[in-house]
């Protein structure tokens, strides 16, 4: 499975909308087997979507993301795992092992079911991932 994560140094980029570096990782057998970085102009959605499509990314892990951008990205058939914060490598390894990423949730993340619109879906998916 190909997983992408917007990164800022060794951490998850705080806001996907203004991110500029994409870490693309190949996950197999519960571990990260390959990784590389792709760079794009901050805030330039077409370029980000082009990379996601070309690289056949299946899951995009990111920090905060606006509803508008989340809606657009989901049209690329990408599973979005948003509103995470922390050490990129640690989160990626945790995800690869199929373990809960809930501990990396950003402050204010409302997984209790009170969220609305895309947050409901995003959080539900994240909750599913958390339960794996």
């Amino acid at each position, binding site marked *: 499975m190909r997983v992408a994560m917007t990164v*800022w140094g060794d951490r998850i*980029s*705080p*806001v996907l*909308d*203004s*991110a*500029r570096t994409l870490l693309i990782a190949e996950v197999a057998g519960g571990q990260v087997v390959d990784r590389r970085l792709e760079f794009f102009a*901050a*805030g330039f*959605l*077409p370029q980000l*979507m*082009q990379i996601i499509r070309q690289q056949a990314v299946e899951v995009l892990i990111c*920090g*905060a*993301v*606006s*509803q*508008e951008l*989340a*809606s*657009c990205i*989901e*049209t*690329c058939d990408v599973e979005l795992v*948003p509103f995470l*914060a922390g050490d990129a490598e640690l989160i990626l390894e945790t995800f690869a092992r199929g373990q809960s990423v809930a501990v990396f949730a*950003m*402050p*204010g*993340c*409302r997984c209790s079911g009170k*969220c*609305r*619109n*895309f*947050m409901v879906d*995003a959080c539900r998916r994240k909750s599913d991932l958390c339960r794996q």
Partner: protein
Amino acid sequence: MNPGDHRISSIANEIILESISDGVFTVDHEWRITSFNRAAEEITGIPRAEAIGRYCWEVFRSNMCEGDCALKRTMKEGKSFVNSSTYIVNSEGRRIPISVSTSLLKNVDDRVLGGVETFRDISVVEELRRELSGCVQLGDMVSRSSTMRHIFGILEQVARSGSTVLIEGETGTGKEVLARAIHNLSPRHERPFVAINCGALPDTLLESELFGYKAGAFTGAERDKPGLFLAAEGGTLLLDEMGDTSPAFQVKLLRVLEEREFQPLGGVERLRSDVRVIAATNRDLSQLVGEGMFRRDLFYRINIIHLKLPPLRERREDIPLLIDRFVARMNRLRDRAVAGIDQEAMALLMEHSYPGNIRELENIIEHAFVLCGNETIGIRHLPAGIVLLPRGHVDRPVSAGEAVNLESAVSSTETRVILEALERNGYNRRATAKDLGMHTTTLFRRLRRLGLQLPERDGRSVRSPKN
């Protein structure tokens, strides 16, 4: 100063910080949040208890965090920055435009303890600015429908292609919004976007608007006037209601599109044009071609990329989303605090057929805003035309292949006429009957037969405007 004064001062500071409407937070040297006031909680949607101790970028989530952090510059250079504009993403995933000021946080001994950042929600200002400039982003088109999501999915490729685009869709479906989004995503986004409604103007006026004219071209043309092709140079020109243009105009437009040159009225020189044309129509152009009402060669010339916007009745899943956006927008524009819409009113709006599409829905919400004060929007705040229509009533154009039931078509028209008359006469039944040229008992019989329910508001005390 005695120790008691320090305590009072500290309490006073806290009261002030909690009472102001600007968000304020402080960080230590490791960028961890050490204080977070009430307004900061409101603007970010993050409770103080969750914010304290976290890295500021995990809480503040601004587009400046990664690249050009004002607080970082302040800490590095030791100077304050005032009113930098940026945006944050709040806990609901909404982009909140804010203005930010930063300064060093020092103790009484002038020792730097960290930094302080104050921020103000400027959504209202931005909304007004956008209203004035007519600027639209892709973000203005939010949808859950699969058709719309498909359009969103290919939009950036369409935008980058530079090809001519044909947008079809009923009135009020957002053709101009889509055209603006294509422009904003395209390499031409820093050049002008110009729109013209071709169906609203006679040929000669349309030509002079589009191509401009030279002084003396006709009576009253005292000096040169550049046309919209020139105004949109390097940018995008939206030709709306293309299906309503005359064959003569279609020939001229075809020539401009093929040769990329145009000639102002009264001029002898042909001017080069670098404009991307987007055509829009609420009619079925291929059908018009078949009927000989639209030139086939022009149709093929503009139909390079074809986007069809679905009517709102075919994307009902978007209705709650759109209502939320309209309510939030009107709250900001009118400084109101309407919480939303109650379930009954929502159910009614979900059933409506929206012949006027998104524009009609926006008008309905605006109507409700006038009547609802700061209450939640309920059925009593909706226009009578929505409330009185029997459940499941469909008021839409009948398509060519659809079986037409004359009786239901007559009932539909009769319903509309009666509702309009009732609204016109302030729901005074007697005045309405008189207006419609029938006896009051006949009106009541018709209301019963059509299944129309009258509002609680009784218009009997209201005198007819004609009386």
